[in-house]
């Protein structure tokens, strides 16, 4: 691991940069709060969401953050559950990112509610048949469990319990992402959803997105500390990301092939993959090309070994994730409910029509506000606590 000796001047510059980063993050978070204030005082009328496209841009941000928050823990699980040393050194950072992204995602979900002031109602009334109610417990339980897990890593006396906590986190995050997939899997009336494939698809997607986010943050931290990741470690991380990207591509392909197999689903598949305007474009260009093919080339093409290419591949995987979620969440709602198969249908309530949606600035601000919360938690924690991966001289496990 190469590193240069910090000078007083370079430390001063870094200190200024740190405060600048906090200021930028804080400003974005404040812009998010402004959006919430506007949505609270005017109602959802100022968003692009309506009675047809019920969930919009905030949900794309929130679900990305929550799914990635679960996937990022892979790094921790490989360390604690499977005992791989280079992953174990990264488990604290992975845990921190998980807490940060969960906090950001949940904040967006909560503040998008029609009545966020009734959070106490949501906390005290549980409908046991509702996946949302399960998720309230799953998400808050996840944060609690990861805090305990971090404690077992960072407090020497708690070290003996680390494996136990690691296994707990490992199991919990599978259940959690299953819960996120089930939000959609239980919507049997909508053609885009209502599939048992969705929970496993979300789990595999979480691996890729979590790994990509982890890699981006790790690269930034190494750059900040003027260090380079050992090539052997980078190589393993690259391959793992590549395998996860391929795995998630397989799950998404299976979901679409399964749909295309049923004749009553073919209209929807044609819409989302071919005729649907922005949705096929985002799917093919955003998700398949930018989010999968280009990253795979960057990860596997011979001669490309540099850390920054892996970072770019990770950034593209994240971008592809947003594109896929937009297609899945918004495109899935844009396709009309089939109340009368075999009939042409029309009404004043958009029956039989493709619903239009254009997200408003407030939705973006709210979503970016969630991202900035994750960013602020990560930046401050990395600064005040020791989350820098401490590798021993590299030994193959």
């Amino acid at each position: 691991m190469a590193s240069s000796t910090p000078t007083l001047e370079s430390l001063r510059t870094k200190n200024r940069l740190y405060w600048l980063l906090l200021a930028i993050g804080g400003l974005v978070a404040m812009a998010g709060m402004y959006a919430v204030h506007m949505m609270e005082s005017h109602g959802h009328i100022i968003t692009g969401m309506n009675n047809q496209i019920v969930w919009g841009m905030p949900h794309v941000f929130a679900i990305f953050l929550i799914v990635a928050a679960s996937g990022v823990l892979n790094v921790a699980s490989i360390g604690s559950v499977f005992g791989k040393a280079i992953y174990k050194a990264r488990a604290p950072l992975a845990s921190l990112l998980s807490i940060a992204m969960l906090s950001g995602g949940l904040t967006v979900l909560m503040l998008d509610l029609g009545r966020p002031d009734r959070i106490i109602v949501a906390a005290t009334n549980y409908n046991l048949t509702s996946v949302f109610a399960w998720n309230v417990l799953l998400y808050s339980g996840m944060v609690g469990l990861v805090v305990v897990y971090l404690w077992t890593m960072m407090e020497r006396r708690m070290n003996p319990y680390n494996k136990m906590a690691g296994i707990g986190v490992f199991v919990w995050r599978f259940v959690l992402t299953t819960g996120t997939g089930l939000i959609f899997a239980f919507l049997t009336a909508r053609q885009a959803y209502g599939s048992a494939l969705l929970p496993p698809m979300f789990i595999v997607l979480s691996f890729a997105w979590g790994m990509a986010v982890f890699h981006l943050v790790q690269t930034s931290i190494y750059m900040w500390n003027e260090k380079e990741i050992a090539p052997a470690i980078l190589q393993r991380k690259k391959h793992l990301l590549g395998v996860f990207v391929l795995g998630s591509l397989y799950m998404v392909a299976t979901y679409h092939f399964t749909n295309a197999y049923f004749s009553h689903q073919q209209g929807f598949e044609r819409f989302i993959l071919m005729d649907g305007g922005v949705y096929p474009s985002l799917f093919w260009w955003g998700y398949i090309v930018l989010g999968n093919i280009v990253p795979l080339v960057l990860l596997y093409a011979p001669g490309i070994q540099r850390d920054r290419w892996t970072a770019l591949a990770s950034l593209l995987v994240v971008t592809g994730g947003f594109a896929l979620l937009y297609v899945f969440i918004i495109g899935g709602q844009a396709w009309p409910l089939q109340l009368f198969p075999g009939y042409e249908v029309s009404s004043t309530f958009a029956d039989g029509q493709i619903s239009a949606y254009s997200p408003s600035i407030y939705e973006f601000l709210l979503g970016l506000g969630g991202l900035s919360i994750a960013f602020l938690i990560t930046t401050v924690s990395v600064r005040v606590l020791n989350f820098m991966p401490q590798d021993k001289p590299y030994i193959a496990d």
Partner: protein
Amino acid sequence: MSEIDIQRRQFLKTSVGAAAVAIASGMMLYSVAQGKSEGASSKVRWGMLIDTNQCKPGCNDCVTACNNENGLSGGTLPTDSQWIRKIEIKDISSGRELSLPMMCQHCEHPPCVDVCPTNASMKRADGIVLVDKHRCIGCRYCMMACPYKARSFVHEAQHDQNPDVPRGKGTVESCTLCVHRIDVGGKPACSEACPNKAIIFGDLNDPNSEIAQKVHSVASVQIRADLRLNPGVRYQGL
């Protein structure tokens, strides 16, 4: 008995009396606030039978009646609430055209109730599916789950509301089957307004009711019967 004991006894008597007065008046206020003492009966299953042969294309009387009864604006923007809407359908193979009203189908197994995290979506014992406006947090999961797109979200502040039908910004709402009319022996506004008597309202469980007899004697279907939700609204002539 000492002077102190007498005083103590007097004090206890007064305290018990005061407590009784306070609790009794509270209980009275509570019972007044609760309205009618008897709740909805599970012996009743309110429902509707809609005869599509009698429903005229272009006629919007049921929709207008619903809007007036429930204080809806009648707007048809994507953000406006529509508790009932007319759907025009045309059989692609035969070209046969029909018109019919669509609203909350008051399912026996309502998906909106299953998915609601806070139990704000609920089904009364008599089969009417409602939203508790005080419990709804506005997550819109019920809107995602409803196969009939029967629910609307209140996107902005409401004014000049009907006192019987409170509505609130940030909560979800849908056809209540005019529960405020049913509870005083009336029937839904749409059913009353239909000039062709295409919407028959009544108790599906009462064998002597018009609706039960008609459902027994004519062919009727439930929309999306494949989902096995057993809606309380049935359609004739589809």
